[in-house]
């Protein structure tokens, strides 16, 4: 079985190299059959990688402990879901997943474009397969998932495996990595189309129209992956944090930020034919940041709890990044003539300008995160001394940038395309501005003194008011014309321009996220040593320890506290925080108990037992105000993203304001 898997990977590697050569040669020598054979190779690679992945999953599910990967990441006692999740629990398996997802995306791209974009498709295929080739080299040689345990020349096996890291044995962890990979890998597709169009000297809007959906879908996956990871950290790590500014977390955020910038600036190209070079730069940056993130997770260059074990593959990534970035820069510079802007900015007070500022702030945020992530390495190389760049650095730099971005989220919809008059801006800003100021004033009077919290809550109100106004105005006009009720009119409005109104829903999701982040300023915590019958309090809650239990099963032993929660005089529920000790990995984990509400979460962690002879249970209690809004924001963002993907009822025609070339050619000549 292991031989079959290894051969499948090797064959896929050979075919990916063939696909690169055949598609480029076929295009240059004008041999369509050669190009077709390259496309068939893409389908075959998918079949081969599906076979390899299937074999690995089969080995994991059946506990084939001759394979070193299975022995290291699975064991007999694990539930089936986590045995399956072990596929991406280690370096080799996760690289195989990367390669498999890329082959899936590639096959879909080739199939859906088999009769379209024939000028650029050979190059698109070549780029997709070039990236595929790189990842297949990694799993064919230095990081093979089909390596067997050997003693001398004989294959051996261990009676049981180490099992998946217990911290990863949580349901969101079974989904979070594939979602992130779907995001990371998905950004290869728009990059391939962008570069393909550059190579073919066809840098019009075709690649954008073709890849728009890809980018939105991929962005949705990346968002899901990041926020599921945040949800996992919140529910599993036992301290209630959802974002720790760890280098690997940062690595997932970087391409998400550049992709968000791209999704905004691409509208400038679609509607005005502007910012073509910038869009190329953004999509390339997104792709290379995905590769950089993968490199960061696997090279050991920066210390991270999320990183895989140190491995020699870092140098492969450095070589790939160096060659890829050099080739991309060359292509963009060489094709600048094809990337000229077709329009002009009519006014500084315009939606176009707001997009420029939006891109600036997103890129500044991306740079700040990247800089903070790699600065310890740079500083140590220059000064020879280690330094720490921890959460306070990122918060100080990124909170003001984030708040400015939130402001722009509200400002954008208020400014018209092409130009806005000062008068119209005054009218548009009046209600949202007043509501924001009133919110801040009320909160200040109520005793909120945290500056950023006040600003954030005020801006949340500002953006909410602008988004609600947009829906209200549009729906009211439709209702007046068609006689529909307001709810039906809102659905009709959204259906007419799904991208615009889906985008507004995504913006509301961002508002909810900020609301959740802001609650962090008001967190409360306490640590209590308790026995059965003891009472303690936190915030408005009284807690009484009803019972302390313990036990074990095949996978882990456990201790659990049963705690009654009283809000005021009434019983609000019973929480059961638990501590586990996994047998195979000999690692403890916390199964926290959370009472989730929109206003605040009560969060209990069974942290251990005192060592002073009294054997008291140590319960950490937290109150996290507003944190649930982060998950509400996530669901809202995904709902908005799905709406953006629905074809609009009315097909929009974007009239370009002014085409420079056209004006010059047909301008009236004075007699």
């Amino acid at each position: 079985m292991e031989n079959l898997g290894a051969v499948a990977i090797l064959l896929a590697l050979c075919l990916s190299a063939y696909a690169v050569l055949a598609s480029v040669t076929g295009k240059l020598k004008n041999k369509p059959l050669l190009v077709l054979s390259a496309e068939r190779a893409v389908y075959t690679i998918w079949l081969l990688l599906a076979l390899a992945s299937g074999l690995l999953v089969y080995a994991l599910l059946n506990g084939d402990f001759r394979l070193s990967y299975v022995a290291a990441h699975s064991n007999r006692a694990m539930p089936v879901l986590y045995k399956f999740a072990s596929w991406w629990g280690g370096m080799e398996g996760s690289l195989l997943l990367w390669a498999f997802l890329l082959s899936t995306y590639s096959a879909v791209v080739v199939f859906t474009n088999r009769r379209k974009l024939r000028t650029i498709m050979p190059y698109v295929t070549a780029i997709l397969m070039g990236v595929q080739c790189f990842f297949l080299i990694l799993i064919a040689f230095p990081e093979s998932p089909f390596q067997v345990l050997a003693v001398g020349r004989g294959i051996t096996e261990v009676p049981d495996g180490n099992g998946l890291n217990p911290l990863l044995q949580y349901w969101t962890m079974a989904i979070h990595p594939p979602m992130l990979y779907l995001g990371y890998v998905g950004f290869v597709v728009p990059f391939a189309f962008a570069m393909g169009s550059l190579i073919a000297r066809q840098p019009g809007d075709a690649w954008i129209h073709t890849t728009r959906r890809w980018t939105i879908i991929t962005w949705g996956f990346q968002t899901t992956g990041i926020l599921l990871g945040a949800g996992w950290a919140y529910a599993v790590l036992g301290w209630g944090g959802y974002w720790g500014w760890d280098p690997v977390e940062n690595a997932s955020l970087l391409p998400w930020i550049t992709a968000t910038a791209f999704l905004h600036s691409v509208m400038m190209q679609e509607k005005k034919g502007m910012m073509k070079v910038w869009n190329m730069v953004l999509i390339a940056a997104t792709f290379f940041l995905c590769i950089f993130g993968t490199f960061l997770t696997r090279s050991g260059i920066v210390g991270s709890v999320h990183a895989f074990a140190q491995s020699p593959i870092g140098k492969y990534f450095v070589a790939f990044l160096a060659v890829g970035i050099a080739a991309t820069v060359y292509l963009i510079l060489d094709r600048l003539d094809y990337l000229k802007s077709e329009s002009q900015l009519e006014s500084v007070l315009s939606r176009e300008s707001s997009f420029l500022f939006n891109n600036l702030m997103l890129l500044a945020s991306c740079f700040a995160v990247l800089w903070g992530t790699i600065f310890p390495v740079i500083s140590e190389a220059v000064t020879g001394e280690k330094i720490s760049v921890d959460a306070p650095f990122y918060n100080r730099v990124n909170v003001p940038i984030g708040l400015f971005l939130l402001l722009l989220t509200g400002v954008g919809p208020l400014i018209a395309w092409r130009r806005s008059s000062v008068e119209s801006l005054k009218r548009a800003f009046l209600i949202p501005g007043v509501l924001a100021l009133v919110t801040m004033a009320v909160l200040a009077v109520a005793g909120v003194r945290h500056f950023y919290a006040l600003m954030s809550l005020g801006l949340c109100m500002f953006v909410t008011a602008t988004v609600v106004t947009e829906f209200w105005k549009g729906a009211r006009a439709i209702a007046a014309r068609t006689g529909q009720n307001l709810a039906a009119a809102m659905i009709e409005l959204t259906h007419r321009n799904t991208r615009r109104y889906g985008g507004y829903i995504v913006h509301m999701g961002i508002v909810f996220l900020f609301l959740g982040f802001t609650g962090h300023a008001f967190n409360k915590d306490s640590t209590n040593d308790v026995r059965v019958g003891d009472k303690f309090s936190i915030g408005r809650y009284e807690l009484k320890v009803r019972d302390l239990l313990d036990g074990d099963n095949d996978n882990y032993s456990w201790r659990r506290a049963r705690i009654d929660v009283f809000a005021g005089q009434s019983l609000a529920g019973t929480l059961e925080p638990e501590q586990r000790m996994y047998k195979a990995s000999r690692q403890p984990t916390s199964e926290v108990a959370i009472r989730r509400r929109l206003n605040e979460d009560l969060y209990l962690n069974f942290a251990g037992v005192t060592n002073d002879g009294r054997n008291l249970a140590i319960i950490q209690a937290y109150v996290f105000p507003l944190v649930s809004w982060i998950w509400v924001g996530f669901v809202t963002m995904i709902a908005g993203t799905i709406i953006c993907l629905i074809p609009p009822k009315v097909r929009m025609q974007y009239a370009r304001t002014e085409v420079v070339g056209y004006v010059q050619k047909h301008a009236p000549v004075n007699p």
Partner: protein
Amino acid sequence: MFKSMRRLIHKELSRWGGHCRPTASRPRALLLVLAAGLCLAQSSSDLLTPAIRRVGGTLACLCGSCKNTVATCQMLGCHYSSPARERIAKMQAAGMTDEAVIDDFVKREGKRALAVPPAEGFNLLSWVMPFVAIAIGLVAIYLYVKRYRKPAASPPVVDNAALERYHEEIENDLAKLE
């Protein structure tokens, strides 16, 4: 309390006669010994007074598994932040100022003891560069707007002779219509 886990630990410890030499063939024993160790290693005596939070907030937790500060690390029995809090408490009790406490940590651990890079020397770049990037971006936007902004429309210049000619043509056409 926790009878079954303690019973198992005692049973295993007595079986090993106090000489715990873990081997791969006895994972259960090792697990239980580790569980006992884990219990012993834990303490709820985390010191988090406002004064400790204030100083601890400027110091990095160097446990290697989080990016929190000594004040915000919530891992109970963390091998770095728990002793660090105790040290802060002792130094504060001895009358040391916040700066002196922080200096003591830097003397022992180097600059990595600080949660953020010190704003001096080369490390000043860590603070400056994000804002330099924003400044460069603003300049780029200014240049972009300057280059691609449509020039303000100038009032049309009317040539009197041409205007006269058009008027004449209009008059002629109207005359023909009549």
